[in-house]
Protein backbone atom coordinates (compact mmCIF):
# COMPACT_ATOMS: atom_id res chain seq x y z
CA UNK A 1 0.00 0.00 0.00
CA UNK A 2 1.64 3.14 -1.21
CA UNK A 3 1.74 6.37 0.75
CA UNK A 4 1.49 9.77 -0.82
CA UNK A 5 4.66 11.83 -0.58
CA UNK A 6 3.22 14.05 2.14
CA UNK A 7 2.23 10.99 4.17
CA UNK A 8 5.68 9.49 3.73
CA UNK A 9 7.21 12.72 4.95
CA UNK A 10 4.85 12.87 7.91
CA UNK A 11 6.12 9.42 8.86
CA UNK A 12 9.72 10.51 8.35
CA UNK A 13 9.12 13.59 10.51
CA UNK A 14 7.95 11.41 13.41
CA UNK A 15 11.37 9.79 13.38
CA UNK A 16 13.31 13.01 13.18
CA UNK A 17 14.43 12.90 9.57
CA UNK A 18 15.37 16.40 8.35
CA UNK A 19 12.68 17.93 6.17
CA UNK A 20 12.16 21.33 4.64
CA UNK A 21 9.24 23.55 5.62
CA UNK A 22 6.10 22.49 3.86
CA UNK A 23 2.33 22.28 3.88
CA UNK A 24 -0.37 20.39 2.03
CA UNK A 25 -2.68 22.66 0.05
CA UNK A 26 -6.17 21.82 -1.04
CA UNK A 27 -6.89 25.18 -2.67
CA UNK A 28 -5.03 27.99 -4.40
CA UNK A 29 -5.64 30.26 -1.43
CA UNK A 30 -4.23 27.64 0.87
CA UNK A 31 -1.16 27.27 -1.38
CA UNK A 32 -0.63 31.01 -1.19
CA UNK A 33 -0.88 30.97 2.60
CA UNK A 34 1.64 28.15 2.90
CA UNK A 35 4.08 29.89 0.54
CA UNK A 36 3.65 33.09 2.56
CA UNK A 37 4.39 31.23 5.80
CA UNK A 38 7.51 29.62 4.31
CA UNK A 39 8.65 33.06 3.17
CA UNK A 40 10.96 31.94 0.36
CA UNK A 41 10.63 30.46 -3.15
CA UNK A 42 8.70 27.20 -3.08
CA UNK A 43 8.15 24.08 -5.11
CA UNK A 44 4.61 22.79 -5.69
CA UNK A 45 4.23 19.04 -6.17
CA UNK A 46 1.11 17.21 -7.22
CA UNK A 47 0.25 14.42 -4.76
CA UNK A 48 -0.36 11.29 -6.79
CA UNK A 49 0.61 7.69 -6.21
CA UNK A 50 2.48 7.28 -9.48
CA UNK A 51 5.82 8.55 -10.72
CA UNK A 52 6.42 10.81 -13.70
CA UNK A 53 5.17 13.98 -12.04
CA UNK A 54 7.99 16.14 -13.35
CA UNK A 55 7.55 14.91 -16.94
CA UNK A 56 3.81 15.51 -16.71
CA UNK A 57 4.41 19.09 -15.60
CA UNK A 58 2.92 18.45 -12.19
CA UNK A 59 5.93 19.80 -10.27
CA UNK A 60 6.63 23.51 -10.61
CA UNK A 61 8.42 26.30 -8.78
CA UNK A 62 7.07 29.62 -7.54
CA UNK A 63 8.99 32.66 -6.36
CA UNK A 64 6.08 34.41 -4.65
CA UNK A 65 2.90 33.43 -2.78
CA UNK A 66 0.72 34.79 -5.60
CA UNK A 67 2.65 32.73 -8.12
CA UNK A 68 2.20 29.68 -5.87
CA UNK A 69 -1.59 30.19 -5.98
CA UNK A 70 -1.48 30.51 -9.77
CA UNK A 71 0.62 27.37 -10.15
CA UNK A 72 -1.70 25.45 -7.83
CA UNK A 73 -4.51 26.06 -10.31
CA UNK A 74 -2.25 25.02 -13.19
CA UNK A 75 -1.01 21.71 -11.85
CA UNK A 76 -3.93 20.46 -9.76
CA UNK A 77 -6.00 19.33 -12.80
CA UNK A 78 -3.06 17.52 -14.42
CA UNK A 79 -3.59 13.76 -14.63
CA UNK A 80 -0.39 11.88 -13.84
CA UNK A 81 -0.25 8.22 -14.77
CA UNK A 82 -4.03 8.13 -14.94
CA UNK A 83 -4.41 9.64 -11.49
CA UNK A 84 -5.95 12.87 -10.32
CA UNK A 85 -4.07 14.88 -7.73
CA UNK A 86 -5.27 14.44 -4.17
CA UNK A 87 -3.66 17.73 -3.11
CA UNK A 88 -0.58 19.84 -3.73
CA UNK A 89 2.46 19.76 -1.48
CA UNK A 90 4.00 23.21 -1.13
CA UNK A 91 7.58 23.01 0.06
CA UNK A 92 10.49 25.39 0.44
CA UNK A 93 12.80 25.42 -2.57
CA UNK A 94 16.26 24.32 -1.54
CA UNK A 95 19.59 25.30 -3.13
CA UNK A 96 21.12 21.88 -3.72
CA UNK A 97 24.83 21.06 -3.65
CA UNK A 98 24.58 17.26 -4.05
CA UNK A 99 21.88 14.62 -4.38
CA UNK A 100 21.92 11.11 -2.88
CA UNK A 101 19.64 8.10 -2.99
CA UNK A 102 18.73 5.86 -0.04
CA UNK A 103 16.22 3.05 -0.20
CA UNK A 104 15.35 -0.01 1.84
CA UNK A 105 13.37 -2.87 0.36
CA UNK A 106 13.18 -6.66 0.36
CA UNK A 107 15.44 -8.84 -1.71
CA UNK A 108 13.21 -11.78 -2.55
CA UNK A 109 16.11 -13.95 -3.71
CA UNK A 110 18.21 -13.44 -0.61
CA UNK A 111 15.10 -13.33 1.62
CA UNK A 112 16.60 -10.37 3.43
CA UNK A 113 16.04 -6.63 3.54
CA UNK A 114 18.53 -4.66 1.52
CA UNK A 115 19.74 -1.10 1.89
CA UNK A 116 20.53 0.57 -1.42
CA UNK A 117 22.55 3.76 -1.33
CA UNK A 118 23.96 5.96 -4.06
CA UNK A 119 25.80 9.26 -4.17
CA UNK A 120 23.99 9.93 -7.44
CA UNK A 121 20.42 10.66 -6.38
CA UNK A 122 17.58 12.49 -8.02
CA UNK A 123 17.33 10.11 -10.94
CA UNK A 124 16.10 6.58 -11.43
CA UNK A 125 18.20 4.27 -9.24
CA UNK A 126 17.98 1.41 -11.76
CA UNK A 127 19.54 3.71 -14.34
CA UNK A 128 22.36 4.64 -11.97
CA UNK A 129 22.95 0.97 -11.10
CA UNK A 130 23.23 0.14 -14.78
CA UNK A 131 25.41 3.03 -15.91
CA UNK A 132 27.40 3.78 -12.75
CA UNK A 133 27.49 0.59 -10.70
CA UNK A 134 30.43 1.87 -8.64
CA UNK A 135 28.16 4.62 -7.33
CA UNK A 136 25.58 2.19 -5.90
CA UNK A 137 25.96 -0.02 -2.85
CA UNK A 138 23.66 -2.85 -1.84
CA UNK A 139 23.89 -3.99 1.77
CA UNK A 140 21.79 -6.85 3.07
CA UNK A 141 21.04 -7.04 6.77
CA UNK A 142 19.28 -9.38 9.14
CA UNK A 143 15.96 -8.71 10.80
CA UNK A 144 16.96 -10.99 13.66
CA UNK A 145 20.17 -9.26 14.70
CA UNK A 146 20.22 -5.74 16.15
CA UNK A 147 20.27 -3.04 13.50
CA UNK A 148 23.09 -0.60 14.19
CA UNK A 149 24.18 2.61 12.41
CA UNK A 150 27.22 0.69 11.23
CA UNK A 151 25.10 -0.93 8.49
CA UNK A 152 24.20 2.48 7.08
CA UNK A 153 27.72 3.83 7.50
CA UNK A 154 29.30 0.98 5.58
CA UNK A 155 26.72 1.24 2.80
CA UNK A 156 27.34 4.96 2.39
CA UNK A 157 31.12 4.63 2.61
CA UNK A 158 31.02 1.92 -0.08
CA UNK A 159 30.08 4.61 -2.60
CA UNK A 160 33.10 6.71 -1.71
CA UNK A 161 31.39 9.18 0.62
CA UNK A 162 33.69 10.22 3.47
CA UNK A 163 34.20 12.87 6.15
CA UNK A 164 31.43 15.16 7.35
CA UNK A 165 29.01 13.95 4.67
CA UNK A 166 29.40 10.37 5.86
CA UNK A 167 28.82 11.38 9.45
CA UNK A 168 25.73 13.42 8.65
CA UNK A 169 24.19 10.91 6.27
CA UNK A 170 24.64 7.91 8.57
CA UNK A 171 21.95 8.73 11.16
CA UNK A 172 19.46 9.65 8.41
CA UNK A 173 19.92 6.40 6.52
CA UNK A 174 20.00 4.41 9.76
CA UNK A 175 16.63 5.90 10.75
CA UNK A 176 15.27 4.96 7.34
CA UNK A 177 16.13 1.32 8.13
CA UNK A 178 14.40 1.65 11.52
CA UNK A 179 11.26 3.04 9.85
CA UNK A 180 11.29 0.26 7.28
CA UNK A 181 11.36 -2.42 9.95
CA UNK A 182 9.04 -0.75 12.45
CA UNK A 183 6.11 -0.39 10.08
CA UNK A 184 6.33 -3.58 7.98
CA UNK A 185 7.22 -1.62 4.88
CA UNK A 186 8.05 -3.11 1.54
CA UNK A 187 9.78 0.08 0.45
CA UNK A 188 11.18 3.10 2.27
CA UNK A 189 12.89 5.41 -0.15
CA UNK A 190 14.41 8.87 -0.13
CA UNK A 191 15.22 10.25 -3.54
CA UNK A 192 16.75 12.67 -3.45
CA UNK A 193 18.35 13.06 -0.08
CA UNK A 194 20.26 16.29 -0.58
CA UNK A 195 23.13 18.25 0.82
CA UNK A 196 22.19 21.91 0.62
CA UNK A 197 24.63 24.64 -0.21
CA UNK A 198 24.68 25.62 3.47
CA UNK A 199 25.82 22.08 4.40
CA UNK A 200 22.51 20.81 5.81
CA UNK A 201 21.09 17.47 4.70
CA UNK A 202 17.38 17.36 3.84
CA UNK A 203 14.90 14.77 2.58
CA UNK A 204 13.50 16.30 -0.60
CA UNK A 205 11.31 13.46 -1.81
CA UNK A 206 10.34 10.13 -0.32
CA UNK A 207 8.14 7.15 -0.90
CA UNK A 208 6.82 4.51 1.41
CA UNK A 209 5.01 1.27 0.62
CA UNK A 210 3.45 -0.71 3.46
CA UNK A 211 2.71 -4.41 3.26
CA UNK A 212 -1.08 -4.52 2.77
CA UNK A 213 -1.42 -7.39 5.24
CA UNK A 214 0.13 -5.17 7.94
CA UNK A 215 -2.58 -2.52 7.79
CA UNK A 216 -4.44 -3.80 10.83
CA UNK A 217 -1.27 -3.92 12.87
CA UNK A 218 -0.57 -0.27 12.08
CA UNK A 219 -4.15 0.97 12.15
CA UNK A 220 -3.33 3.67 14.70
CA UNK A 221 -0.53 5.13 12.56
CA UNK A 222 -2.68 5.03 9.43
CA UNK A 223 -5.53 6.77 11.22
CA UNK A 224 -3.17 9.47 12.47
CA UNK A 225 -1.87 9.97 8.93
CA UNK A 226 -5.45 10.26 7.68
CA UNK A 227 -5.41 7.04 5.68
CA UNK A 228 -8.87 5.52 5.98
CA UNK A 229 -9.57 1.79 5.97
CA UNK A 230 -11.60 2.25 2.79
CA UNK A 231 -8.55 3.42 0.85
CA UNK A 232 -7.22 0.41 -1.02
CA UNK A 233 -4.43 2.37 -2.72
CA UNK A 234 -4.47 -0.14 -5.54
CA UNK A 235 -3.44 0.77 -9.08
CA UNK A 236 -7.11 0.65 -10.13
CA UNK A 237 -10.48 0.11 -8.45
CA UNK A 238 -11.42 -3.57 -8.04
CA UNK A 239 -13.58 -5.06 -10.78
CA UNK A 240 -16.91 -6.75 -10.05
CA UNK A 241 -15.13 -10.06 -10.56
CA UNK A 242 -12.56 -9.15 -7.91
CA UNK A 243 -15.21 -7.92 -5.50
CA UNK A 244 -17.09 -11.19 -5.89
CA UNK A 245 -13.84 -13.08 -5.31
CA UNK A 246 -13.36 -11.24 -2.03
CA UNK A 247 -16.93 -12.15 -1.08
CA UNK A 248 -16.23 -15.83 -1.76
CA UNK A 249 -13.17 -15.69 0.44
CA UNK A 250 -15.03 -13.90 3.22
CA UNK A 251 -17.96 -16.31 3.11
CA UNK A 252 -16.21 -18.97 5.19
CA UNK A 253 -13.38 -18.75 7.69
CA UNK A 254 -11.80 -21.98 6.52
CA UNK A 255 -8.75 -21.50 4.31
CA UNK A 256 -8.23 -19.04 1.50
CA UNK A 257 -10.00 -19.14 -1.83
CA UNK A 258 -10.11 -15.72 -3.38
CA UNK A 259 -7.78 -12.75 -3.73
CA UNK A 260 -8.55 -12.83 -7.41
CA UNK A 261 -7.16 -10.37 -9.92
CA UNK A 262 -8.87 -10.15 -13.26
CA UNK A 263 -6.97 -10.45 -16.52
CA UNK A 264 -8.24 -10.57 -20.07
CA UNK A 265 -7.09 -14.09 -21.00
CA UNK A 266 -9.11 -17.24 -21.52
CA UNK A 267 -7.56 -19.82 -19.18
CA UNK A 268 -9.10 -19.71 -15.70
CA UNK A 269 -6.67 -20.39 -12.89
CA UNK A 270 -7.27 -22.00 -9.51
CA UNK A 271 -3.75 -21.77 -8.12
CA UNK A 272 -1.88 -21.41 -4.86
CA UNK A 273 0.21 -22.88 -2.05
CA UNK A 274 3.48 -21.56 -0.71
CA UNK A 275 4.15 -18.98 -3.41
CA UNK A 276 2.62 -21.27 -6.00
CA UNK A 277 0.20 -18.67 -7.28
CA UNK A 278 2.87 -16.34 -8.61
CA UNK A 279 5.03 -19.20 -9.86
CA UNK A 280 2.15 -20.88 -11.65
CA UNK A 281 0.81 -17.65 -13.09
CA UNK A 282 4.25 -16.96 -14.55
CA UNK A 283 4.52 -20.56 -15.76
CA UNK A 284 1.27 -20.26 -17.69
CA UNK A 285 2.43 -17.06 -19.31
CA UNK A 286 5.88 -18.37 -20.14
CA UNK A 287 4.24 -21.39 -21.79
CA UNK A 288 2.29 -19.03 -24.03
CA UNK A 289 -0.98 -19.14 -22.09
CA UNK A 290 -3.29 -16.22 -21.40
CA UNK A 291 -4.54 -16.28 -17.80
CA UNK A 292 -8.07 -15.05 -17.22
CA UNK A 293 -7.28 -14.41 -13.59
CA UNK A 294 -4.82 -14.65 -10.76
CA UNK A 295 -6.02 -16.16 -7.50
CA UNK A 296 -4.84 -17.68 -4.24
CA UNK A 297 -6.13 -20.88 -2.77
CA UNK A 298 -4.68 -22.60 0.29
CA UNK A 299 -5.02 -23.21 4.00
CA UNK A 300 -7.55 -25.97 3.30
CA UNK A 301 -10.65 -24.10 2.18
CA UNK A 302 -14.00 -25.79 2.44
CA UNK A 303 -15.46 -27.65 -0.51
CA UNK A 304 -18.09 -24.94 -0.87
CA UNK A 305 -15.49 -22.21 -0.97
CA UNK A 306 -13.42 -23.97 -3.65
CA UNK A 307 -16.65 -24.66 -5.52
CA UNK A 308 -17.75 -21.02 -5.42
CA UNK A 309 -14.33 -19.81 -6.56
CA UNK A 310 -14.47 -22.25 -9.48
CA UNK A 311 -17.93 -21.06 -10.41
CA UNK A 312 -16.76 -17.45 -10.27
CA UNK A 313 -13.79 -18.12 -12.56
CA UNK A 314 -15.96 -20.07 -14.98
CA UNK A 315 -18.50 -17.24 -15.03
CA UNK A 316 -16.02 -15.03 -16.86
CA UNK A 317 -17.01 -14.65 -20.52
CA UNK A 318 -14.66 -16.62 -22.75
CA UNK A 319 -13.39 -18.93 -20.01
CA UNK A 320 -14.14 -22.53 -20.97
CA UNK A 321 -11.24 -24.23 -19.23
CA UNK A 322 -9.49 -23.94 -15.91
CA UNK A 323 -6.11 -25.14 -14.68
CA UNK A 324 -6.08 -26.28 -11.05
CA UNK A 325 -2.49 -26.25 -9.91
CA UNK A 326 -0.70 -25.90 -6.64
CA UNK A 327 2.69 -26.36 -5.12
CA UNK A 328 3.03 -29.45 -2.90
CA UNK A 329 0.41 -29.04 -0.18
CA UNK A 330 0.59 -30.08 3.45
CA UNK A 331 -2.42 -28.74 5.33
CA UNK A 332 -4.56 -28.14 2.26
CA UNK A 333 -6.16 -31.43 1.26
CA UNK A 334 -6.05 -32.55 -2.34
CA UNK A 335 -9.35 -34.43 -2.08
CA UNK A 336 -11.20 -31.43 -0.64
CA UNK A 337 -10.01 -29.11 -3.44
CA UNK A 338 -10.79 -31.82 -6.01
CA UNK A 339 -14.34 -32.07 -4.71
CA UNK A 340 -14.71 -28.28 -4.77
CA UNK A 341 -13.54 -27.70 -8.32
CA UNK A 342 -15.45 -30.67 -9.75
CA UNK A 343 -18.58 -29.51 -8.00
CA UNK A 344 -17.98 -25.98 -9.28
CA UNK A 345 -17.78 -27.25 -12.85
CA UNK A 346 -20.96 -29.32 -12.51
CA UNK A 347 -22.89 -26.47 -10.87
CA UNK A 348 -21.73 -24.24 -13.75
CA UNK A 349 -23.29 -26.72 -16.16
CA UNK A 350 -19.92 -27.95 -17.44
CA UNK A 351 -18.29 -31.34 -17.71
CA UNK A 352 -15.30 -31.46 -15.32
CA UNK A 353 -13.35 -33.73 -17.68
CA UNK A 354 -13.65 -31.16 -20.46
CA UNK A 355 -13.34 -28.09 -18.29
CA UNK A 356 -10.39 -28.90 -16.01
CA UNK A 357 -7.42 -28.74 -18.38
CA UNK A 358 -5.08 -30.06 -15.72
CA UNK A 359 -5.26 -30.83 -12.00
CA UNK A 360 -1.83 -30.77 -10.42
CA UNK A 361 -2.05 -30.68 -6.64
CA UNK A 362 0.34 -33.09 -4.96
CA UNK A 363 0.45 -33.59 -1.21
CA UNK A 364 -1.92 -34.32 1.63
CA UNK A 365 -4.63 -36.88 0.83
CA UNK A 366 -3.59 -37.03 -2.81
CA UNK A 367 -4.53 -40.69 -3.20
CA UNK A 368 -8.06 -39.88 -2.13
CA UNK A 369 -8.08 -36.87 -4.43
CA UNK A 370 -6.85 -38.88 -7.38
CA UNK A 371 -9.70 -41.38 -6.90
CA UNK A 372 -12.19 -38.51 -7.17
CA UNK A 373 -10.48 -37.09 -10.24
CA UNK A 374 -10.33 -40.49 -11.92
CA UNK A 375 -14.00 -41.06 -11.24
CA UNK A 376 -14.82 -37.81 -13.03
CA UNK A 377 -12.25 -38.45 -15.80
CA UNK A 378 -10.25 -35.33 -14.99
CA UNK A 379 -6.66 -35.17 -16.30
CA UNK A 380 -4.40 -35.03 -13.25
CA UNK A 381 -0.76 -35.48 -12.36
CA UNK A 382 1.39 -35.83 -9.27
CA UNK A 383 4.58 -34.12 -8.15
CA UNK A 384 6.65 -35.95 -10.78
CA UNK A 385 5.28 -33.35 -13.21
CA UNK A 386 6.74 -29.91 -12.50
CA UNK A 387 4.55 -26.87 -12.10
CA UNK A 388 6.03 -25.52 -15.32
CA UNK A 389 5.21 -28.69 -17.27
CA UNK A 390 1.72 -28.87 -15.78
CA UNK A 391 1.11 -25.31 -16.97
CA UNK A 392 2.39 -26.36 -20.39
CA UNK A 393 -0.11 -29.22 -20.55
CA UNK A 394 -2.96 -26.84 -19.75
CA UNK A 395 -1.81 -24.32 -22.34
CA UNK A 396 -1.46 -27.06 -24.97
CA UNK A 397 -5.08 -28.06 -24.39
CA UNK A 398 -6.16 -24.45 -24.79
CA UNK A 399 -4.36 -24.21 -28.09
CA UNK A 400 -5.79 -27.50 -29.29
CA UNK A 401 -9.37 -26.54 -28.41
Amino acid at each position, binding site marked *: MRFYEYESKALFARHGLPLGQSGVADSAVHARDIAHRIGSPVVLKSQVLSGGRMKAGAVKFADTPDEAAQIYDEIFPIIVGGQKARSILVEEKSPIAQEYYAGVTWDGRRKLPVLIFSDMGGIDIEEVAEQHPDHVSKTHFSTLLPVTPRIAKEAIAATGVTGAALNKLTPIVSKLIDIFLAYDLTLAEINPLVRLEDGRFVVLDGHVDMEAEARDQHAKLLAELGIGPEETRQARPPTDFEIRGAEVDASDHRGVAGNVVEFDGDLGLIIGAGGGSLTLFDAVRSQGGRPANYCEIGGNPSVKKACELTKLVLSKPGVEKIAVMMNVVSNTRVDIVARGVIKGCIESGKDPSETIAIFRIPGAWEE*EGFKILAKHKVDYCDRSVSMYDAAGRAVAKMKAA
Partner: protein
Amino acid sequence: MPGLFIDVKVSDKAAKDAAVVAKLEEVCPVDIFVQEESGALRIVEENLDECVLCDLCMSAAPSNSVEIVKLYE
Protein backbone atom coordinates in the same frame (compact mmCIF):
# COMPACT_ATOMS: atom_id res chain seq x y z
CA MET B 1 -29.48 -31.94 -2.49
CA PRO B 2 -27.60 -35.16 -1.72
CA GLY B 3 -23.82 -35.22 -1.69
CA LEU B 4 -21.91 -35.66 -4.90
CA PHE B 5 -18.98 -37.34 -3.21
CA ILE B 6 -20.10 -38.48 0.21
CA ASP B 7 -23.18 -40.12 1.68
CA VAL B 8 -23.80 -40.97 5.32
CA LYS B 9 -25.93 -43.86 6.52
CA VAL B 10 -27.12 -44.04 10.12
CA SER B 11 -28.96 -47.07 11.44
CA ASP B 12 -32.56 -46.52 12.51
CA LYS B 13 -31.72 -47.51 16.05
CA ALA B 14 -28.89 -44.96 16.36
CA ALA B 15 -30.94 -42.26 14.64
CA LYS B 16 -33.65 -42.62 17.22
CA ASP B 17 -31.31 -42.65 20.20
CA ALA B 18 -31.24 -39.04 21.45
CA ALA B 19 -27.95 -39.53 23.28
CA VAL B 20 -26.22 -40.90 20.18
CA VAL B 21 -27.67 -38.16 17.99
CA ALA B 22 -26.48 -35.49 20.42
CA LYS B 23 -23.02 -37.01 20.31
CA LEU B 24 -23.03 -37.07 16.49
CA GLU B 25 -23.97 -33.42 16.37
CA GLU B 26 -21.23 -32.61 18.86
CA VAL B 27 -18.37 -34.41 17.16
CA CYS B 28 -18.93 -33.66 13.47
CA PRO B 29 -16.57 -30.79 12.48
CA VAL B 30 -18.58 -29.90 9.39
CA ASP B 31 -22.09 -29.98 10.85
CA ILE B 32 -23.53 -32.91 8.94
CA PHE B 33 -25.64 -34.08 11.90
CA VAL B 34 -28.30 -31.99 13.60
CA GLN B 35 -30.50 -33.00 16.49
CA GLU B 36 -34.05 -31.75 16.05
CA GLU B 37 -36.02 -30.49 19.05
CA SER B 38 -37.76 -33.84 19.14
CA GLY B 39 -34.35 -35.47 19.62
CA ALA B 40 -34.43 -37.08 16.19
CA LEU B 41 -31.57 -36.98 13.74
CA ARG B 42 -31.52 -34.80 10.64
CA ILE B 43 -28.77 -35.14 8.05
CA VAL B 44 -27.76 -31.78 6.56
CA GLU B 45 -27.42 -32.77 2.94
CA GLU B 46 -25.70 -29.58 1.77
CA ASN B 47 -22.84 -30.34 4.18
CA LEU B 48 -22.28 -33.94 3.10
CA ASP B 49 -19.55 -33.08 0.62
CA GLU B 50 -17.69 -31.19 3.33
CA CYS B 51 -17.05 -34.47 5.16
CA VAL B 52 -13.35 -34.65 6.01
CA LEU B 53 -13.39 -38.43 6.61
CA CYS B 54 -12.33 -37.95 10.22
CA ASP B 55 -14.41 -40.96 11.36
CA LEU B 56 -15.37 -39.20 14.59
CA CYS B 57 -19.02 -40.00 13.94
CA MET B 58 -18.26 -43.67 13.60
CA SER B 59 -16.33 -43.59 16.85
CA ALA B 60 -19.08 -41.69 18.65
CA ALA B 61 -21.87 -44.08 17.69
CA PRO B 62 -22.27 -47.79 18.47
CA SER B 63 -20.24 -50.04 16.24
CA ASN B 64 -21.48 -50.29 12.63
CA SER B 65 -24.36 -47.89 13.21
CA VAL B 66 -22.82 -45.06 11.13
CA GLU B 67 -21.37 -45.60 7.69
CA ILE B 68 -19.55 -43.05 5.54
CA VAL B 69 -19.97 -43.88 1.86
CA LYS B 70 -17.47 -42.56 -0.64
CA LEU B 71 -19.50 -42.20 -3.79
CA TYR B 72 -16.36 -42.04 -5.91
CA GLU B 73 -15.20 -45.53 -5.09
